[in-house]
């Protein structure tokens, strides 16, 4: 049911029956190591290309999520997945492995919540008993795709971010034990003219702010309703900008509740510039870290706003600015 301008309320309360988070070498030295199901020390995962390594991460996340629910691949009715590689091949090839009906998504780093929203919609309407939402990113594969070769010696500015190597998957079911998806606010594409691909935080912050403001308006609640309000991968720079913009709009976010997945995943002493980014950033922190905290009863209501920068290496070279999007999903115990 649509409520307000752009929010879907899932009245049948789809349940996240199981979830999985897989990480790479940098994540295995990070701040939330206990929240990953598998951590790989090898960036290549024993494969002969970074792209194949990313596909493996995604396959692992999906199969762990399915196993945790005590199900087999063919018990899953639909799969929704996306990533950052050209033509989302990591997702397509994972869907080939799993062999179930599949939707490929592209929402850049907002894919985790885009997938979770659509999976919840499918289950809520009764079109399926369950649906799997997954996403992945790989540091070196993204650098290769969007920036320079990994071993190229270019100096990155302090506003740059570190793409998370990992994958996350969440299995949404009609009933069962686990956190429930309450509602989703679908984002608009916002472009405030930032064109520096080493400053994604500033490019995406206005999109996050737009979705957050609309979420609270549509649901007629205020930020104190949630225990955690976390953006996907704004990093320190974008988080700071978003907090300021929100308070300018009269939405004062409590500092202890308002956070960013890109600021949670790594330790302070890891050299990740402004913080983590990539599809797997919001996915692993939400499906791993936050769901574990919900399981332990530390937090009950969370709002995740996954942010995505909708640029391509070509659009940047053609001097286009960076349009961004953010999707918010409200999850409660």
């Amino acid at each position, binding site marked *: 049911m649509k409520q307000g301008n752009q929010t879907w309320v899932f009245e049948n309360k789809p349940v996240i029956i199981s979830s999985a988070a897989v990480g790479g070498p940098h994540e295995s030295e990070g701040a939330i190591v206990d929240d990953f199901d598998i951590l790989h020390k090898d960036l290549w995962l024993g494969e002969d290309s970074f792209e194949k390594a990313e596909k493996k991460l995604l396959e692992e996340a999906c199969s762990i999520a399915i196993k945790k629910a005590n199900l087999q691949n063919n018990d899953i009715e639909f799969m929704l997945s996306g990533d950052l590689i050209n033509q989302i091949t990591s997702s397509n090839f994972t869907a080939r492995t799993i062999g179930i009906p599949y939707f490929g998504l592209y929402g850049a780093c907002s894919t985790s919540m885009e997938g979770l929203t659509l999976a919840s919609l499918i289950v809520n309407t009764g079109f399926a008993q369950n649906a799997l939402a997954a996403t992945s990113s790989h540091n070196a594969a993204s650098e290769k795709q969007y920036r320079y070769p990994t071993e190229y*010696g270019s100096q990155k500015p*302090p506003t740059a971010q570190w793409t998370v190597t990992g994958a996350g998957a969440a299995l949404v079911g009609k009933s069962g034990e686990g956190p429930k998806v309450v509602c989703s606010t679908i984002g608009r594409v916002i472009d*405030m*003219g930032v064109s520096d691909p080493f400053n994604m935080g*500033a490019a995406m912050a206005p999109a996050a702010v737009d979705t957050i403001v609309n979420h609270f308006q549509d649901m007629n609640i205020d930020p104190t309703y949630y225990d955690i309000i976390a953006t996907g991968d704004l990093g320190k*720079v974008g988080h700071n900008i978003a907090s300021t913009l929100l308070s300018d709009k009269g939405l004062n976010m409590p500092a202890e509740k308002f956070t960013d997945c890109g600021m949670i995943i790594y330790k302070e002493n890891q*050299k990740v510039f402004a913080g983590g980014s990539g599809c797997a950033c919001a996915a692993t922190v939400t499906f791993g870290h936050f769901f574990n905290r919900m399981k332990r009863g530390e937090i009950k209501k969370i709002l995740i706003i996954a942010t995505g920068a909708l640029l391509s290496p070509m659009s940047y070279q053609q001097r286009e600015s960076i349009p961004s999007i953010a999707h918010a999903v409200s999850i409660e115990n």
Partner: protein
Amino acid sequence: MPGKRNKELNNEQLGYLKFSGKLEPKRKIFSNCIKAFITGGTICVIGQLVQVFFKTYFDFDEITAGNPTIAVLIIIAVILTGLGIYDHIAQWAGAGTAVPITGFANTIASASIEHRSEGYVLGVGANMFKLAGPVIAFGVFSAFVVAFVKIVLKELGVI
């Protein structure tokens, strides 16, 4: 990022860029310059020592020692790139490692390593000059212009 793009932006966007610019940490230009000076200088000192070595122990003079010296620096840069060390030095050094010949060697080596997974022909061969290509293209063109100017001036009897 100021420049051509800003012309097409509306006032709201320009206002945002001004506002967000204040909240963004800036590149530390002064300390970056010092670091670039130190590393760039160190690379040159190493180059000088290698040149002296070739002049002292082999049959090279001031000019002919240049080629083997450059070759040694390129080999060192390529090995450091292959071992995954060069990019870490470069993050600290900035222009210090980018400007000398070692930076040029790094662009070719890193692109070759990166695209190895697409095969030797379409991967390594087609992509190795991905970053170095513009340097070669505009370098050759500038050399042509300078040489042309020199010939004209010589014909006119100016030099």
